[in-house]
């Protein structure tokens, strides 16, 4: 029989597990994508609207059928409204994630969150200062309580400007003020976006999109940034640590527990329980060598960044990880968790546990985590996972894990550079490093799995462009071996020299998807050091395989912050060439950066290199290496 698995994924473990899934008669995300074809062109173009019951409406792209919805909205308005609702949903997801962390911080301050603690008191104090909270002589828990309160203010209507915007370069803040997109409140911008897209509110396609940018900024400099900072405060600021990736991180002789979803408030508690000596002994009494915790998707990234916990896979691997038959328990909280997982798990002995009051799934058992019960519940669930160990049937773990290094927070990068960003700036000025690119985002069955991320990363580092990555992209490049120091062999001469001297890989793992804000902060630090704006820097962003609404928000806040961003899959905007033109050309005059769409990573690498060279030229930096 012939196989087509190499047409679905470039990864070895992915191909082997696709074969196993087929033999086990498991329907995967790729099968469901095929069954959906052809996907509706109206929706793909952004030309269908279901916002009200005078509809549903669609606009004929051929100009003969209806050209307006029942309310009179034309293609530009319908496309803009649809894109903006995607931004709102994405921003809301990230911001809610941040809100849950702030609530834990508040509970920790009150002593009502057993197991949680302030692990980085220095970061607590520095962030508190940014919020205007007095820290001198105050107890850590009191500062925590006041910071939590101040952050909650950021979510509301009382303030007119988010606190952390001050981290952005002054020139960038001026642009936002001039354009009128300075984000005022986190929930406020999402709420206003939903209001504006209601029938009969904002029917200016440009003003809708500007609110979309503002909404995205309330995520990037608001909800997500708070999420990352509070996670660092509660669980520790990441520092470089060895780790490993791919399905081989699951162990044949240990109790395997996989955490999936996003918020470390759950996964950190599971980690603590999995490290308790009492439970390890229980596991050994059942014949296991120990308890092996691994992650998939962003909550795995959070544990990897702070503790070196290994990652079994990214978005498209989540079903396949279960088909190894080696997972005793998978615990999920929210975002990017496919509702098919319960069905896949039912073919094996795996217990599926949902933990968030916001997120139920078919075929999963619901055990709700709250700050008060998290520590105990984590221990109970790990115990149950251990009890499940002897119910294993056949286990299929056909690969060895790939080694990797993660944990590059901005603090860690600056630390690796010797305490300031100066060495990096010097290297960029000298041309040894042409610039930097952030490769972010998810997987999508429309793009050969991991091919987009890995190919783009390889081409960029060959061109002496430093790559930082997050989310699913970071797992892709780690699996390809780019995150070990010896990966400098794939890099161009300049990048090889600099990374070699610093002992760092040419691709740096910056964290989870909310940690994309670390890229914003790094860019701000570089811009401030050069007394420039972010849009002046020789940097770019890319999301070669994105799928989610969160990614739309991230892409929008990158561009709104001045970062040229190349997308792989096309967002649903082709139905309005006006919108396409604004996003890919017009925004340059508004925010100093634009989007580009290019599914082929070989070509998007060229687009990014070209952009970086243009920025270098404008900064007076030479094309040749000094």
């Amino acid at each position, binding site marked *: *029989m*012939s196989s*087509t698995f190499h047409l679905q994924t470039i990864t070895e473990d992915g191909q082997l597990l696709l074969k196993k899934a*087929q*033999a086990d*008669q*498991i*329907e995967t995300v790729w099968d469901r994508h095929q069954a959906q074809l052809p996907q509706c062109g109206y929706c793909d173009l952004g030309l269908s609207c279901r916002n009200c019951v005078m509809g549903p409406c669609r606009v004929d792209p051929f100009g003969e059928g209806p050209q307006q919805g029942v309310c009179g909205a034309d293609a530009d308005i319908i496309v803009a409204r649809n894109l903006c609702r995607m931004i709102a949903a994405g921003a809301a997801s990230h911001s809610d994630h941040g809100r849950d962390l702030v609530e834990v911080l508040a509970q920790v301050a009150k002593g009502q969150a057993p197991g949680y603690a302030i692990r980085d008191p220095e970061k607590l104090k520095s962030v508190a200062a940014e919020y205007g909270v007095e820290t001198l002589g105050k107890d850590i828990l009191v500062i925590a309580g006041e910071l939590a309160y101040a952050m909650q203010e950021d979510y509301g209507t009382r303030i007119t400007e988010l606190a952390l915007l001050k981290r952005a370069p002054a020139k960038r803040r001026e642009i936002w003020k001039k354009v009128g997109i300075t984000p005022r409140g986190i929930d406020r911008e999402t709420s206003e976006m939903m209001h504006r897209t209601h029938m009969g509110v904002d029917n200016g396609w440009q003003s809708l999109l500007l609110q979309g940018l503002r909404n995205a900024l309330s995520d990037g400099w608001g909800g997500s940034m708070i999420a990352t900072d509070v996670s660092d405060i509660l669980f520790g600021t990441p520092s470089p640590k060895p780790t490993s990736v791919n399905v081989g991180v699951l162990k044949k002789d240990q109790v395997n527990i996989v955490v999936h979803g996003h918020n470390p408030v759950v996964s950190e508690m599971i980690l603590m329980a999995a490290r308790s000596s009492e439970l390890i002994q229980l596991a050994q009494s059942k014949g296991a060598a120990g308890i092996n915790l691994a992650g998939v998707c962003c909550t795995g990234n959070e544990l990897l960044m702070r503790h070196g916990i290994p990652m079994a896979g990214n978005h498209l691997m989540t079903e396949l990880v279960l088909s190894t038959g080696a997972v005793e328990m998978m615990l999920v909280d929210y975002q990017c968790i496919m509702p098919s997982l319960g069905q896949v798990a039912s073919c094996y002995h795996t217990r599926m546990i949902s933990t968030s009051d916001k997120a139920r799934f078919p075929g999963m058992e619901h055990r709700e985590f709250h700050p008060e019960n998290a520590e105990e519940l984590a221990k109970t669930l790990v115990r149950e996972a251990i009890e499940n160990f002897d119910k294993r049937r056949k286990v299929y773990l056909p690969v060895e894990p790939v080694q990797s290094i993660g944990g590059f927070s901005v603090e860690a990068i600056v630390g690796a550079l010797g305490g300031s960003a100066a060495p990096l700036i010097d290297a960029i000025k000298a041309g040894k490093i042409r610039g930097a690119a952030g490769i972010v985002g998810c997987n999508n069955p429309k793009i050969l799995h991991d091919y987009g991320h890995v190919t783009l990363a390889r081409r960029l580092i060959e061109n002496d462009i430093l790559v930082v990555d997050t989310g699913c992209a970071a797992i892709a490049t780690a699996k390809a071996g780019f995150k070990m120091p010896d990966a400098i062999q794939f890099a161009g001469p300049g990048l090889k020299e600099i990374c070699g001297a610093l002992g760092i890989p040419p691709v740096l793992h910056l964290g989870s998807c909310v940690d994309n804000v670390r890229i914003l902060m790094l860019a701000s630090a570089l811009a401030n050091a050069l007394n420039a704006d972010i849009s002046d820097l020789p940097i770019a962003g890319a999301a070669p395989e994105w799928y989610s609404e969160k990614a739309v928000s991230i892409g929008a806040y990158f561009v709104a912050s001045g970062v040229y961003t190349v997308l792989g899959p096309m967002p649903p905007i082709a139905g309005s060439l006006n919108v396409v033109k604004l996003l890919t050309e017009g925004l340059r005059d508004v925010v100093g950066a634009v989007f580009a769409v290019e599914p082929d990573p070989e070509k998007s690498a060229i687009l990014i290199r070209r952009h970086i060279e243009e920025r270098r030229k404008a900064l007076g930096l030479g094309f040749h290496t000094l």
Partner: protein
Amino acid sequence: MNHVIIGNGIAGVSAAESIRQLDGSGSIVMISDEPVDPYCRPMISLVLEGVIPPSKLPIRDSGFYEEFNITPVLGSRVARMDVDAKTLFLSDAKTLPFDTLLIASGADPRPIKAPAAHLANIFFMRNQHQVLKMLEVLPQTRHALVLGGGLVGFKAACGLLHRGIDVTLLIRSGYPLSLQVDEIAGAMILAELTRRGLNVRVGVEVTAFKGIDSVTGAILSDGSEVSCELVIVGKGVLPSISFVPRDRIQVDLGIVVDDHLETSCSGIFAAGDVAESMDIARKTRWVNAIWPEAVAQGRIAGMNMAGRAVVYKGSLSRNVIRIFGLDILAAGWVNAPDDPRFAVLSEHNRRLNTYRRLVFEGDRLIGAILVNRIETGGILTAMIQNEIPVRGSRRKLLEPHLSLKSLMF
């Protein structure tokens, strides 16, 4: 013009209708040894199965001959023919002159040689009359024996099984329908039938039948004995050519015809189960004794007889069988030899319970087997028949629900 047609099966009937469409005045005479209205031969197994009543067998009603101005000569067989004198001599001593002649006499079951094969209730399953007689015997039948795993034996066994009768099927190859399908599809079929209670014995033959007036049992070549009150023999058919002068009309596996369905004698045509034509997939002459070929050959032979020189592209083996929730569609040369000339692509999707096997020669598809999800199989049949070169992805052809557009650029 005197058009004479031997046989009122679908080949003969299609030819008659074709001729009448083009020639309003010529005379058409149809000779048949079955004194019944034209009926659908493949459906007789459904009568045995009990799915349709015998009344549903006719495909033309008794007014057919009058409507098309045909002179029927029913209940007669042709004894011999004089090619030069262009005359037929019938079994009842009647003579029939012709200007054009179509031999659509079909085929007769291959006889079996075994002691006591003359006993009552041992049947062939070739015509309506035989099946009606079987129906009479069914009430006393506790065990039935079926000889042969080809299309006839297979359909007989399934029909009886469907009726709740205990059936033993004797087949030569490891699985039924060995000429139509490959080992994997064959195994799927065998598994399903066995699950339904069919007893299959591989590699054994009947050495003798037992019984006094009617059959009560059979002795098999492995020494065992089987009791049976009904036997159906499906050991192949031989073309009905006893009356054909072999020195004048070329005969090989059947009556050899060219691409106008004309025999080696000008003005004499052949169509249906009796005719041997060029097989599109095999690229050699072959007899494809199936209903759709009889229709196509009859139609085109009739057009040629009426003076319109229509070319016949060639025949293609194809069958679709639906039994017990398993659908099988097989077309072309599915069991091409293991030779570098041929490439095979197959896929067994256990989740959807489908199987596909495709055989290519160069860039042409020459054979296809589909198990389940057969609705779009006609696309593949047409590709084989029209010898369409397959450009682009061959894997697309394996998809359980093949979309026509995925083959278009």
